[in-house]
């Protein structure tokens, strides 16, 4: 942990520090409850948690301007919360309910909210990287460099740096000087495979060198270090159109997803994770520096619990989508021949314009 004496804390606004703690506590409470809701079958699909990454989440989002665009991975619940999404609507999205951010159609891995410029979680590794590059291209078209020019932050996992699309995107961004910051949220495991077993250059930020892209590695458990590094990189993007490859190193406290028992982890590692858990560490740091007292910290924790309890109630009260909604939004314009072929539909078309010829059940004729 940086600055055990608390000198750098002295330069910070105490209210801002408490806000970081509040965000981290909310994410922790939310994710623990999400895990519980998954085991109670309230959440379908897969569910990847930010447990252990709270400092990284709070630090990165603190560096973003409201006008900046964030492209996330499938481990993105915390980012939605930290950018200001209502916890109830995030939980409802996880539950697959109508009140969710995407009316239940996106789920845990695909949180999307253009209001807060969260341009999506992405359920497939690396899917977001070229997209974020394109969004940065759009920004470069629209306006010149300026201190308040919007930029793009693109999150990716450590294992994503091994896929082709990552390298293609970095090359384009550097070649065209796009206002984008790529952030490798290195939690040291690609599912069960350690970074060292998957990447020939395990200091992942160095992979930007091939594209003459500056970068650095920071302690992902240190919210201020993450924030400052991200802020500097975003400034570089805004004012110099120079993309950066930032790497934050932390460790997820649980398995890859809720269903992964993390059998690849030893008992010693699990014990070390408990010791290095960023949330109690930050709490302790703030209390030591006099920014927070035990009582206020307990208050913040309990407010987080209450907010999450309310989020669960809100999600529970929202209806699931109707079966017929399956066909909504497949095309933006009416698709005349899109036959549904539901059981009970007439087999032969009553007239020339409507529906299928005979012989098709369950799709267009």
């Amino acid at each position, binding site marked *: 942990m940086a600055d055990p004496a608390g000198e750098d804390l002295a330069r910070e606004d105490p209210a801002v520090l408490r806000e970081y703690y509040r965000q981290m506590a909310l994410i922790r409470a939310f994710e623990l409850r999400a895990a519980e809701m998954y085991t109670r079958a309230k959440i379908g699909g897969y569910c990847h948690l930010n447990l252990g990454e709270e400092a990284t989440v709070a630090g990165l989002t603190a560096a973003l301007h409201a006008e900046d665009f964030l492209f996330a991975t499938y481990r993105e619940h915390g980012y939605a919360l930290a950018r200001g999404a209502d916890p109830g609507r995030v939980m409802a999205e996880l539950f697959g309910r109508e009140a969710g951010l995407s009316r239940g159609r996106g*789920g845990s891995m695909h949180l999307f909210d253009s209001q807060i410029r969260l341009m999506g979680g992405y359920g497939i590794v690396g899917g977001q990287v070229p997209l974020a590059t394109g969004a940065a291209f759009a920004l470069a078209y629209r306006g010149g460099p300026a201190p308040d020019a919007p930029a793009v932050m693109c999150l990716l996992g450590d294992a994503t740096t091994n896929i082709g699309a990552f390298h293609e995107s970095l090359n384009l961004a550097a070649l065209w000087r796009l206002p984008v910051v790529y952030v490798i949220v290195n939690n040291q495991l690609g599912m069960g495979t350690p970074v060292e077993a998957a990447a020939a250059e395990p200091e992942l930020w160095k992979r930007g060198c091939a594209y003459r892209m500056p970068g650095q590695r920071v302690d992902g458990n240190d919210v201020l270090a993450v924030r400052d590094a991200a802020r500097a990189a975003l400034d570089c993007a805004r004012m110099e159109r120079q993309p950066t490859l930032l790497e934050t190193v932390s460790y997820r406290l649980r398995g890859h997803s809720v269903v992964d028992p993390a059998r690849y982890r030893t008992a010693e590692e699990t014990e070390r994770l408990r010791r290095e858990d960023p949330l109690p560490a930050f709490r302790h740091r703030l209390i030591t520096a006099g920014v927070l007292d035990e009582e206020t910290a307990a208050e913040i924790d309990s407010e987080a619990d209450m907010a999450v309890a309310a989020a669960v109630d809100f999600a529970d009260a929202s209806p699931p989508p109707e079966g017929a909604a399956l066909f909504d939004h497949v095309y933006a314009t009416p698709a005349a021949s899109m036959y549904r072929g539901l*059981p009970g539909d007439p087999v032969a078309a009553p007239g020339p314009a409507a529906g299928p010829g005979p012989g098709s059940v369950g799709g*267009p004729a």
Partner: protein
Amino acid sequence: MTTLTLSRALNEGLRKALEANAKALIMGEDVGKLGGVFRVTDGLQKDFGEARVIDTPLAESGIIGTAIGLALRGYRPICEIQFDGFIFPAFDQIVSQLAKMRYRSRGAVKLPIVVRVPFGGGIGAVEHHSESPEALFAHTPGLRVISCGDPADAYTMIQQAASSDDPVLFFEPKRRYWDKAEVDTEGGLAAALPMDSARVLVEGSDLTLLCYGPMVRTCAEAAVAAASDGRSLEVIDLRSLAPLDVETIFASVRKTGRCVVVHEAVVTGGLGAEIAAQVTQECFYSLEAPVLRVGAYTTPYPPSRLEEHYLPDLDRILDAVDRSFGY
């Protein structure tokens, strides 16, 4: 005979394949230490070593491309694509290289590569994790595309695929991984049905029900349900999607006069369309009704709360059977 889950049967089959040929390798994301997301390769790295069961980086195009290079030098890679929807980064290597290289070299090279793909839905696993892309590969000349429907076939077909000198796309019905059945792990492969043959699973006289992979069990259940209505359905597990065992299909349809094709994949442009066209052409004078198709609607794979509305089930199969008899 041993009782095995489909996942375990594949595991035993892969073990046999590694034992049978020292050039056989397994490679993929988290197939070693973790034993695969669905535990299909569980324990194999421990027993065969890291040189033969290889944990790769997350790089599907790289996995398939590297496997092709290994095969060019005499190895027999068995690759795992972790989920159906993850195969698309490797699509270029599969379609542009894997499928065409033998033809391009006029038979000078062979590519004995198996690409294992857990496919289909039914486990609440949403898009990228529940898809049925098999028709894209069946449409590509040069590839063999097969799918097992039960543990016994899983055990033999994965070994047959591993010993084939052609590239094989091996589609594993994800939601059936936990289905249990008796598997003969003592007998050799010699007596086993070849992997490119269809199997008449249930004999019947009134209607031919064609299926593969996850729909095999559902169709067998449909045959039981239809029997209580006095209808005798013949259920055929296609097993091989490319090439298709059309002789078995035609013989059955000529006997029954009715045909329904069932798959989880989207109906539009799916295998059902190809089968319907061929059956119509070859069995035209035997048909009492048009060939009907049951499959997924023309929408992307839905979120888990809508999955039950999307996937073909017993009701939709029996509805199609009713329609066929309505002619």
